[in-house]
C-alpha cells in the first residue's frame, strides 16, 4: 500500500477523513460577506479541511490522508447518478419514486441469464427476419393489451364455467402479475406450470410473461422423476400446479422437490385454500395495474418447453416472442382467422401445438375455447355448445370421436376449418373426419400442420389450398420458414418427390437447446438449417409429407418420448438381460411402445410385472410399454448396439 497505508488504517480513519474533507460542508450565517472573521474561524472546520489540515488533526501524513480519503470516497461513490439527468428538466420535476437506477431496474439474476445466454441466432438470418417483418417487437401481453384496448368487450376466453372478455382477462392477468411480482419474481425467472387447459393456465401464462418471466410447461402425466429433472434443469423459481391430480399428490411432490432445490422458492396451488407450505393462487391476486420497470421485448425468451429428445433426458427449448408469437401472427392471414372466430384446441397447452393454436387465435383477436381435459364426448359437446369455428386437434382426437359415433350425434355446423397435427396423420382418419363434418358444415375444410417444439408451426396446409392436399401432406412452409430434403448419405439437397432427411430454417426455428452443447453441435448445419431427424418428401409445389423418423422417439398420440431411460429401468430388473423399446403402429394413437427383452436364464417376466416396476419408479403412464415381446437374442451391431429396425420388422 502506498505511503504505508494499510486496509486497517483505511477502516480506522476512513469515515472521519470523509467527514472532515470537503464532502460534507456546513455554513452558519453569512460570515465572509459580513467579514465576521471570528465566525469564519469558528466554522472553518465544518466547511471542510484540506488533506494537510486533516493530517494535522488526526495524526497522519497528508499523503496518507489522501490515500485513505480516496478509498473511502470510492466506497461511498454511487455510479450512474448522472443518468438521473435524463429524468429531469423541461417541465419534469424530480420525485423520489420516479427514479430507479438502471443497474437496479434492469438487473437479471444469474439463473435468468442462463436462458438468455442460450438465445443465439445466426446474424444474417436475424437481419433477414427483421427486414422481412417476420420478427417485430411484439410480446404475448402486447397482443392482450391491444385487444383489451380496441375491443375490450370482445370474447377472449370461453371456459366451462363462463366467458371472459379481453378487458376482464387483462384485469385478471394484472391481478396475478402484481402477486407474482410481490413474491419477488423478476424478469427472466422461470415459472413452471403443470396445469390442464384451464382459465388458471391462461391467466398464469399471461401473468408470468407480463413481467418478463419465462413459462416452463410440465405435461400433466409427468410424475416425480420427470418433474425433478425438468425443474432442476430449468432452475425454476416457482411452480403453479393443482393441489392434486388424479392419484398424484402434486403439492406434496412439489414441496419435497422445493426442499431439495437451491432455486425453487414458491409452490403456488390453484384454489383459494392452499396445502401447507404452498401459496394459494387466488390469494396472490392484487388489484391494479402492475408497475413493470423492465418490461419484456420481442427478442426476450418467454417460453421454455422440453422435447422428449433423443438422449436419455428431455432437452430444453427456449423460445423468444419473435419465434413463437411471430409464427402465430404470420399464420393468422393464412387461416383467414378473424376476431369473429371461436377457436378450440384439443391439444394440451403444455405442448407446442396447443400453445401455437392459442397464439394464433390471440393474434387474430378471436376467442379461445378451453377444454380442460380431453375426452371424446367433452370435445364434441364443447364444439357444439360453443359453436367453435376452428378446431385444432390430432388424429387420435378425431379417431376416438369417429369411433364413438360422436360426429354423427352432435352439431358441428359452426366448424369451418379443422387442423390436424401431433403425429403422423392416417389419410383414412382425415377423410372420414372431413366427410362427417361436411354433413354438418358444407364447405368445411381440413388441414395438416407439421411442427416440432424446436420449429413451432413449420409447415401447414392453407385454408384456400388444394382440397385434398391435407389428406396426404402437411402443406408448404409457414411464412418466414424454409424447408428442404437432404440426402442421409452426403447431406446434399435432393430433388422434389425424393425421400430424405427434412431440414427446416426460418423465423420460428428455436435458437438452440438450453445447456446442451452436445445436442446443439449436431442440431444445425453451419448455415442455420435445423436437422429434424424426420424422413420426408417435398413435392414439386413445396408441400411436405412426413414418411418416417430417423430417431428412436416414440410418439404416442402425438406425445413424444425417448424410451432410453425406460429401457434402463427395465434392464435394472433382476430377471432382465437386455431391453429395447420400439414403436408399434396403432390405428388411434399412431404409435404405442412395444418392449423387446431377453431374459436371464430360466427367469420369467410379464407385461404386468414390467408395468408394476415402472409404476414403482414413478414413471408417467404414457411411457409404459403396451406390449411385451420376449426374444432369445437381441439383434446387435458389431459394437453391441441393439438394431431396433430389426425388432420393428418382427412386429
Amino acid at each position, binding site marked *: 500500500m502506498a505511503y504505508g497505508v494499510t486496509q486497517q488504517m483505511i477502516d480506522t480513519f476512513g469515515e472521519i477523513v*470523509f467527514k472532515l*474533507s*470537503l*464532502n*460534507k*460542508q*456546513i*455554513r*452558519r*450565517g*453569512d460570515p*465572509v*460577506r*459580513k*467579514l465576521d*472573521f471570528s465566525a*469564519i474561524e469558528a466554522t*472553518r472546520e465544518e466547511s*471542510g479541511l*484540506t*488533506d*494537510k*489540515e486533516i493530517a494535522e488533526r488526526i495524526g497522519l501524513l*497528508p499523503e496518507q490522508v*489522501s490515500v485513505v*480519503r*480516496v478509498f473511502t*470516497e*470510492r466506497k*461511498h*461513490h*454511487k*455510479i*450512474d*447518478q*448522472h*443518468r*438521473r*439527468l*435524463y*429524468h*429531469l*428538466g*423541461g*417541465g*419534469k*420535476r*424530480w420525485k423520489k419514486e420516479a*427514479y430507479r437506477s438502471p443497474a437496479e431496474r434492469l438487473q437479471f439474476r444469474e439463473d435468468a441469464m442462463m436462458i438468455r445466454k442460450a438465445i443465439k441466432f445466426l446474424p444474417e438470418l436475424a437481419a433477414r427476419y427483421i427486414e422481412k417483418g417476420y420478427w417485430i417487437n411484439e410480446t404475448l401481453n402486447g397482443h392482450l393489451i391491444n385487444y383489451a384496448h380496441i375491443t375490450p368487450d370482445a370474447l377472449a376466453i370461453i371456459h366451462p364455467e363462463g366467458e371472459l372478455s379481453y378487458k376482464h382477462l387483462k384485469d385478471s392477468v394484472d391481478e396475478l402479475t402484481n402477486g407474482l411480482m410481490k413474491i419477488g419474481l423478476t424478469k427472466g425467472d422461470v415459472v413452471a406450470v403443470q396445469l390442464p387447459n384451464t382459465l388458471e393456465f391462461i391467466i398464469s401464462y399471461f401473468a408470468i410473461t407480463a413481467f418478463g418471466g419465462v413459462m416452463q410447461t410440465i405435461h400433466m402425466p409427468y410424475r416425480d422423476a420427470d418433474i425433478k429433472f425438468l425443474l432442476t434443469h430449468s432452475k425454476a423459481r416457482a411452480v403453479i400446479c393443482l393441489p392434486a391430480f388424479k392419484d398424484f399428490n402434486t403439492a406434496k411432490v412439489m414441496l419435497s422437490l422445493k426442499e431439495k432445490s437451491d432455486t425453487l422458492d414458491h409452490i403456488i396451488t390453484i384454489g383459494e385454500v392452499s396445502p401447507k407450505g404452498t401459496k394459494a393462487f387466488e390469494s396472490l391476486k392484487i388489484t391494479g395495474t402492475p408497475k413493470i420497470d423492465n418490461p419484456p421485448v420481442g427478442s426476450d425468451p418467454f417460453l421454455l418447453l422440453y422435447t422428449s429428445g433423443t438422449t436419455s433426458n428431455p432437452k430444453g427449448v427456449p423460445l423468444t416472442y419473435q419465434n413463437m408469437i411471430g409464427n402465430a401472427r404470420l399464420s393468422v392471414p393464412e387461416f383467414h382467422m378473424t376476431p369473429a372466430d371461436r377457436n378450440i384446441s384439443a391439444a394440451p397447452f403444455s405442448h407446442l401445438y396447443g400453445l401455437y393454436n392459442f397464439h394464433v387465435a390471440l393474434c387474430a383477436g378471436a376467442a379461445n375455447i378451453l377444454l380442460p381435459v380431453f375426452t371424446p364426448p367433452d370435445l364434441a359437446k364443447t364444439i357444439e355448445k360453443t359453436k367453435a369455428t376452428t378446431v385444432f386437434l390430432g388424429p387420435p382426437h378425431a379417431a376416438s370421436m369417429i369411433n364413438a359415433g360422436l360426429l354423427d350425434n352432435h352439431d358441428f355446423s359452426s366448424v369451418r376449418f379443422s387442423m390436424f397435427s401431433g403425429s403422423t396423420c392416417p389419410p383414412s382418419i382425415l377423410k372420414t373426419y372431413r366427410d362427417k363434418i361436411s354433413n354438418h358444415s358444407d364447405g368445411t375444410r381440413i388441414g395438416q400442420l407439421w411442427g416440432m417444439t424446436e420449429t413451432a408451426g413449420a409447415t401447414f396446409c392453407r385454408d384456400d389450398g388444394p382440397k385434398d392436399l391435407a389428406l396426404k401432406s402437411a402443406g408448404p412452409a409457414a411464412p418466414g420458414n424454409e424447408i428442404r430434403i437432404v440426402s442421409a448419405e452426403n447431406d446434399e439437397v435432393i430433388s422434389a418427390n425424393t425421400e430424405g432427411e427434412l431440414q427446416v430454417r426460418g423465423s420460428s426455428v428455436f435458437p438452440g437447446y438450453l445447456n446442451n452443447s452436445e445436442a446443439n453441435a449436431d442440431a444445425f448445419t453451419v448455415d442455420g438449417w435445423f436437422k429434424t431427424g424426420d424422413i420426408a418428401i417435398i413435392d414439386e409445389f413445396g408441400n411436405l409429407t412426413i414418411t418416417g423418423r430417423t430417431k428412436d422417439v416414440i410418439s404416442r398420440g402425438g406425445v413424444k418420448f425417448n424410451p432410453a431411460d425406460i429401457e434402463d429401468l427395465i434392464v435394472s430388473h433382476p430377471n432382465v438381460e437386455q431391453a429395447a423399446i420400439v414403436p408399434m403402429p396403432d390405428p388411434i394413437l399412431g404409435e404405442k411402445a412395444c418392449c423387446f427383452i431377453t431374459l436371464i436364464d430360466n427367469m420369467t417376466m410379464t407385461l404386468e410385472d414390467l408395468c408394476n416396476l415402472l409404476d414403482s419408479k414413478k414413471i408417467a403412464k404414457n411411457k409404459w410399454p403396451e406390449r411385451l415381446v420376449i426374444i432369445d437374442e437381441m439383434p446387435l451391431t458389431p459394437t453391441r448396439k441393439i438394431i431396433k429396425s430389426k425388432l420393428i420388422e418382427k412386429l
Partner: protein
Amino acid sequence: MANEKSNLEGLRKACEAYVKKKGALAFGLANIETLERTAPEGSRPSDMLPKVKSVISIGVGGGTRGSWSADAKTLAYIGDTETMAYRIAYGLAFYIEAKFGYRAIFVPPDMDPEKGARVPMQSLKLHAEVAGIGARSMAGDILLHPEYGMMYYASVFTEMKMPPDQPMADNPCPHPSCVQLYRKSGQTPCMRFCPVECLSGSIGDDDQVEEMHYDAHACAEMSQQYEAIPSILLDTLDAKDPIERGMALHGPENQVIWYKLSVGAGELLSLCYECMRVCPITQTAPMANPVARGAGMRQKIVEAEAAARTEHAIEQDSHKEN
C-alpha cells in the same frame, strides 16, 4: 492624494470597461487583506503571486432563458459559460500587462491535487464574494447576484494596485418566496428539487440563512463526470465478464467522457442545475434575461450619455458665468 485616488479609479474603470466590452456582466475588486485573512494557508492570493496588490473578480452570465426551459441533458451541455469567463480573465491579464505594465496572472480555476479532491488552488467564489459581485446561497453556496442571477466567475491577480470593493450589502438568498415555502414545508425549492438530496439547512427568524448543509460528494456524483473516470477504470478491472468490461469503457455515457477528453474540452462535462432552475433569484433577476440585459445595458449607455451631456452643459454654463 486626490490625484492618486483618481488615477487608481481610472485604472479600475479601464479594466471594468475592458471586461464588459468582452461580455462580462459584473466586475469587482476584492480586498486583498480580507482574502489573506480568510483563505486557508496555501490558498491565499500571495501563495500564488507573492506581490499581488489587487484581486479582480469578473462574472459572466449563465444560461439563457431558453436553456432553463430545456431538458436537463441539454441544459447540462449548454448551461455553463465558464470558459467564456476564463477567456475574458485571460485577456484582462494580458491587457493589464500590455496597457499598464504591471504583472498579472489569470487565476487557474483548477483543483489543487496536493490538498484534496475538491480543494481549489484559489477560491474564485471567495474572490467574487469579497469583491461584492455575488453572495453565497442556500444552494450549496452557489453565488447569486440580485441583478444577474447565477454567474460564472474568473479571477485575475495583478501587482497593480486598485481600490477594493466591499461585499454586497444584502444577500438576495433566500428569496421571500423561498422563505414562504420554507415556513410551510421546511424546504426551499433548491432543497426540494435537488435530485440527490444534497441540500438541507434552516432559515432563521430574520429570514436569513441560519445553516446551510451541502453534501458535496453526492452533488459531484450527480453532476461531475470527471469523478467517474477513475471509477470507470476500476470497474473495468473489476468487471465480471467481457460485456461488463466493454460497457465500462465503451458504454454511451462513458464514451462521452472519452470524447470530451480527446477533444480537450477541459471543462466540467455535465452539470445538473436543478437547484438553479427552481431558484427565483436566478429566474427573475432583471438582468438574467438576456433580452432585458441588452435593454438594460442600452439604458445605462443612454443614461451615461445623458449624464455626460449634462456635465458638459454645466461645464459650459460655468464657463459662461466665469
